[in-house]
């Protein structure tokens, strides 16, 4: 049995030091709160923004005019992430977005690298453009510096492995220190916790490389921990069943398709989408944002594959694209292309749809980023009722941290958590897993088994469908897998122990997703039901929550919060 090596008290604990987490830490610290960031890796290079990003969605009145609704319309109806918004959050996000852009600019993240606020890419011809082009290559080191400057404590290589609630409120978290091979555990008591664990990858079989599960567009270290643990602690999840799919180059999975400047084409040279025929940096080709199913469809119907052709892009725009790729964090891809002699001026790169993942599907939050569990907040890609990617993480990270930092003053720390049932249960589980060592199931067996079940029993469209009986079967198998895994997983060091715990978290996320998918008796977006093929307009104004009550998974439809 393990014991607690270290206990820490804090006002605000931030789970995950990505963009949202560091912004939450900065805002909380600015409110005078004592802040700890518990980060699985190292905040200087962790999460999906590790080595960069290049588009920040925002409303800049001097460029877009005085009415936020113009940009709100673009976000909700003309972007790849408009499906699941409580629009009161979208408005709050937009109203705060320029302040945050100016903050980043002042801290040295180049938000106007060409001298002025410039909006290029992710754009339709003839429409207003809302994706600010910036250079995020050093965003993580800079945000880390700003958080430290304000006194936030950063615990790198401390993964939160269990969130702790007491009397229906958040009380703290148990973390696993993976800096040494021998596992060590830190208990953190906190008045408020901000969950900022990013998207959920590794839930479905990797579409590009089924045998290479860390080849993902978004950070593969993001394994649903924040969602699973908040769910177990009693928080409500929302829109989980609407898991989405990203697209990008085949087979090197990367985000950043709108950093490329070209035109998508069929093999016979016809353009794939109706939006552009000549490549320009101002527009890019929005086809991949709003019709990324096309990459699958053209393969299924025999007219594909689809390519991104940059050969007609001007030399100036090609240089801009290369610069943009560095800012987006695509230097590994650039180095690879250089080594392999792949030249966008001459070669067309095939594009594909990647496996489903959770982004903007997860924790249900209110306008201040608060979850249904008092004291618990969530921000960034882990949130289920608002999504605006980098801009969303930065702005709502700040909003939730600001609120948590203020409200912590009115909250008290709970008594000792050492004997908390979830602490004792988790430490015992870890001890069992370590005791089995190499004799137990390896973590990747468990992770692959989750992926198989999700891809076969709760797939996401196009073409692949769900049904009541398939989901019933999938739930039965997922529960059996969790039972076998809990009783049989083995690990030999803190790192493989963490991966084993992640695999168990993914099972909880998968189970909740399947229950929600079973309850949504209609087809909507990527959620295609073979037994309910229509879209029910009555559900358009509702969101589906899924949560635990007395050990049972419950679902509940709620009204969307619209402006």
């Amino acid at each position, binding site marked *: 049995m393990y014991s607690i090596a270290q206990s820490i008290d804090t006002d605000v604990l931030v789970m995950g030091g990505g963009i949202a987490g560091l912004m939450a830490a900065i805002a909380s610290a600015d409110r005078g709160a004592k802040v700890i960031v518990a980060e699985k*890796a190292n905040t200087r290079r962790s999460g999906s923004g*590790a*080595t960069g990003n290049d588009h920040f969605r925002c409303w800049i009145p001097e460029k877009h005019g005085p009415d936020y609704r113009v940009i709100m319309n673009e976000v909700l109806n003309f972007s790849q992430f408009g499906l699941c918004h409580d629009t009161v959050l979208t408005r709050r996000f937009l109203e705060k977005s320029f302040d945050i852009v100016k903050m980043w600019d002042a801290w040295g993240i180049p938000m106007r690298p060409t001298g002025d606020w410039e909006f290029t890419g992710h754009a339709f011809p003839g429409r207003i453009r809302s994706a600010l082009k910036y250079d995020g290559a050093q965003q993580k080191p800079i945000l880390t510096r700003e958080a430290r400057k304000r006194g936030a404590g950063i615990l790198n290589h401390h993964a939160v492995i269990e969130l702790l609630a007491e009397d229906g409120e958040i009380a703290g978290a148990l973390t696993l220190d993976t800096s040494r091979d021998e596992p060590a555990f830190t208990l953190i008591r906190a008045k408020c916790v901000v969950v900022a664990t990013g998207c959920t990858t590794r839930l479905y079989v990797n579409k*590009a490389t089924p045998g290479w599960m*860390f080849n*993902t567009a978004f950070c593969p270290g993001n394994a649903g921990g924040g969602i699973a643990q908040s769910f177990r602690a009693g928080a409500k999840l929302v829109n989980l069943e609407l898991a989405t799919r990203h697209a990008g180059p085949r087979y090197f999975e990367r985000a950043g398709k709108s950093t490329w400047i070209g035109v998508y084409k069929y093999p016979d040279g016809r353009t794939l989408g109706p939006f552009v025929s000549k490549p320009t940096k101002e527009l890019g080709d929005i086809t991949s944002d709003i019709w990324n199913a096309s990459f699958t469809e053209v393969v299924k119907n025999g007219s594909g594959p689809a390519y991104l052709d940059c050969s007609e892009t001007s030399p100036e725009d090609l240089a801009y694209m290369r610069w943009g790729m560095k800012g987006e964090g695509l230097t590994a891809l650039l180095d690879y292309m250089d080594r392999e002699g792949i030249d966008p001026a001459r070669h067309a790169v095939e594009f594909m749809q990647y496996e489903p993942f959770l982004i903007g599907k997860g924790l249900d939050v209110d306008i201040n980023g608060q979850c249904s569990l008092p004291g618990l907040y969530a921000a960034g890609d882990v949130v289920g009722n608002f999504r605006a990617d980098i801009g969303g993480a930065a702005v709502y990270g700040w909003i939730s941290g600001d609120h948590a930092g203020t409200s912590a003053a009115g909250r008290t720390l709970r008594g000792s958590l050492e004997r908390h049932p979830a602490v004792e249960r988790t430490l015992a589980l870890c001890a069992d897993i370590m005791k089995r060592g190499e004799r137990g199931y390896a973590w990747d067996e468990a992770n692959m088994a989750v992926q198989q079940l999700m891809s076969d029993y709760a797939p996401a469209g196009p073409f692949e469908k769900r049904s009541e009986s398939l989901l019933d079967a999938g739930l039965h198998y997922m529960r059996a897998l969790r039972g076998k895994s809990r009783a049989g997983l083995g690990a030999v060091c803190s790192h493989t122990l963490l991966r084993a715990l992640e695999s168990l978290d993914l099972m909880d996320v998968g189970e909740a997703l399947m229950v929600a998918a079973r309850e949504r008796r209609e087809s909507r977006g990527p959620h295609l039901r073979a037994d309910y093929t229509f879209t029910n307009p009555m559900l358009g104004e509702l969101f589906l929550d899924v949560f635990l009550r007395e050990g049972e998974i419950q679902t509940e439809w709620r009204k969307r919060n619209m402006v």
Partner: protein
Amino acid sequence: MPPVIDREKCTGCGTCAEICPVQVFRHHKDNDKIPEVKFRRECWHCNACVLDCPAGAVSLSVPLPCMLLHVDASTLKPREPRHV
């Protein structure tokens, strides 16, 4: 396979192991001043280790299954129908 450390150039500072977002490296300074590329199947190919190594000692090898599929752009044009 994923990151490769040039033992000649590596100064043993451990930056790569410290900042890797998915903890591919292990650095047991007492046994070997060079970090070990231990969990290579877990590499995300994000390039953080390459970018941040102060000695320029790390390079990245992209696995064969992740090859980037591409064709000569000039081949994207109508084809003559082929008859049986």
